[in-house]
């Protein structure tokens, strides 16, 4: 009798396990299909399939994070949906983080979402948490610095920019950091330091994605810019660049 009870219990466990694993497997198929639809710009289709994936695989932290990305894309396409989707995005990202509070990508995506939804304080908090998990990432230092600058905390941003430069060993990859330093110094009314920092950004990487902005800035700040910097023609993007008259958000 005891043997029968044990076998029945174990068999029940086996059946439950099989159902559980099958559900997860099918969920991953829906998740993959969702990503395909997203790539085809079918936001609604992507969203519905990812929602099914979340129901079938409730333990996979990546799925709610991805759904929040789709919702953010939908908000960008149609800002009137912001009120409807914002709470769901917050829920999804919180769920992703709760399922795996050690995965830095969840915090980075949540910080990006907060930034996109004009929640800078929340974004700063999330980037800080991501930095605790990946302290040697110069990119994260830069991103946090950018949000701080946008939020009027340029003095605080300088510390993070310093760290980013040290982590890139002041290599050519530090062009982003120097550009951010330029923006931060500009906000702190330290015009000369700002110009020097942006100039250094150009010298580190004459043809970076930031070079048009850097050249535009320096042409306005340095009287005889062409005599100070001779490699402006290396910035191939500048020829098609249209100077912006509005305040531009910092995005490293």
């Amino acid at each position, binding site marked *: 009798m005891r043997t029968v009870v044990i076998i029945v219990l174990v068999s029940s466990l086996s059946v439950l396990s099989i159902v559980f694993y099958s559900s997860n*497997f099918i969920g991953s198929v829906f998740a993959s299909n969702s990503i395909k639809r997203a790539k085809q710009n079918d936001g609604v289709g992507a969203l519905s399939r990812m929602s099914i994936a979340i129901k079938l695989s409730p*333990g996979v932290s990546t799925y709610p994070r991805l759904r929040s990305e789709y919702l953010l894309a939908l908000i960008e396409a149609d800002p009137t949906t912001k009120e409807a989707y914002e709470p769901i995005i917050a829920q999804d990202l919180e769920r992703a983080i709760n399922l795996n509070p*050690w995965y830095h990508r969840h915090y980075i995506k949540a910080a990006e979402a907060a930034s996109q939804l004009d929640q800078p304080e929340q974004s700063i908090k999330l980037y800080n948490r991501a930095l605790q998990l990946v302290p040697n990432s110069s990119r994260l230092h830069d991103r946090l610095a950018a949000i701080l600058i946008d939020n009027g905390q340029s003095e605080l941003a300088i510390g993070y920019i310093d760290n980013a430069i040290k982590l890139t060993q002041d290599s050519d990859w530090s062009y982003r950091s120097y550009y951010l330093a330029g923006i931060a110094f500009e906000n702190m009314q330290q015009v000369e330091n700002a110009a020097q920092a942006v100039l250094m950004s150009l010298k580190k990487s004459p043809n970076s994605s930031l070079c048009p902005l850097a050249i535009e800035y320096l042409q306005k700040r340095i009287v005889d810019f062409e005599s100070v910097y001779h490699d402006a023609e290396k910035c191939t993007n500048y020829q098609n660049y249209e100077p912006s008259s509005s305040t531009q958000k910092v995005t490293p």
Partner: protein
Amino acid sequence: MTTLVNSLKSSVFEGELHKNVVTAITYLLVLLIPIAFVLKNTLFIEAEIVYIEGPKVFLFRVLTAIALPFIIYGFIKEGWRVHANKFAVGIIIYFGWIAVATLESRDISISFWGEFLGQDSYSLLANLHYLVLLLGIIVTFNTKEKLITLFKVIGVSGAIASAPIILQHYSGFPFDLVPDGVGRPPGTFGNPVFAGAFLSLTTMCTAYLAIRHEKLYGLLLIPQVISLLMLQSRAGLLALVIFSGVTIVLSLKTSSKKRVLIYLGSFAILSIGAFLTGGVQRFLDSPSEITGRATYWSNSTKLIVESPVFGFGPDMFRYFYLQVSPANIQGFPEEPDHAHNWIVHNTVEMGIPGGLASAAALIGPIFFVNPFLGAIFLGHAGEQMFGVGRISDLMLFYILIGVAYNAYSRNNCAGF
């Protein structure tokens, strides 16, 4: 081949039902897991090679779940105490410590379920499935004939798994299974290193079978060694070199000399062929890549010092390594999910006791079995000094532990 078919039929269709089911499931696992895959972009969880890992993990867990009630029944029928010996104590301590490390983990949920459910993992849940498989081997493959048949199936599995690698090498495999940025054929394993780990094990098992029992199965070595050379898997070939070295020394005093010489001669000819066809470059690159691994090991040491008793928990390596991973000038530090060494990895995740238990699992069986069988464990240990087991070769590893246990514990397995 007829003998193999007859052996398979009798082990699956004759005798006690519970043993037949477990035997059939074991053969299915050995044959199907290595070649299981789906097309790219069919599944998504997180890993790049989920189209390879996902189906293998799913099949493995479902089949072992099906086998579980039959295995438990087999244990009850045989009597729980029948297996109490030093080897059994070692197995209990090893899996017991995994459970302890899970309870002491920085995140019990991740250490129990795994980082990303459905992907390959060192979680407690994954290890419970390996334990089920191990128990299945112990309770079912309890005669010398059954162990020999099992090794034949392993040999056939290795030969079958070699085919996609050889076809990919000549761009003749009909499915695109090669991940972006991978230059060498990975077969149906997603990564040439994983393929090398699996094939080195199957090759050693096949060589053992040919040397000790059925010399004709030596023919199955040909596709396996060819594919290992095409993989240019240095760790896999290291395993073979260690196994071959030990086997030579042992064979000098036994009647297996001739078979050993045939096996080694074939291996030498194929190796010379590989070098002549340009396969040497990767081996010359070895010193710089060992330096790369040394970075993982030295950073892992910092983690071990930080948490020496219980480690950080199964499946937590990635998260804590990132906190010590050196800066990369391009922006994000490297994010390995394992330490590229079985013992170091398990020490980080489960503390020094866990590392010792893992080392014992890797090398311990050597002290309980005949030296030829021990040579397989020694060879595999060499391979695991530069990587960690993944689903296919890990499955085979636990099968071998079960085989070693029966070879040691059961009179019916004497002479295997």
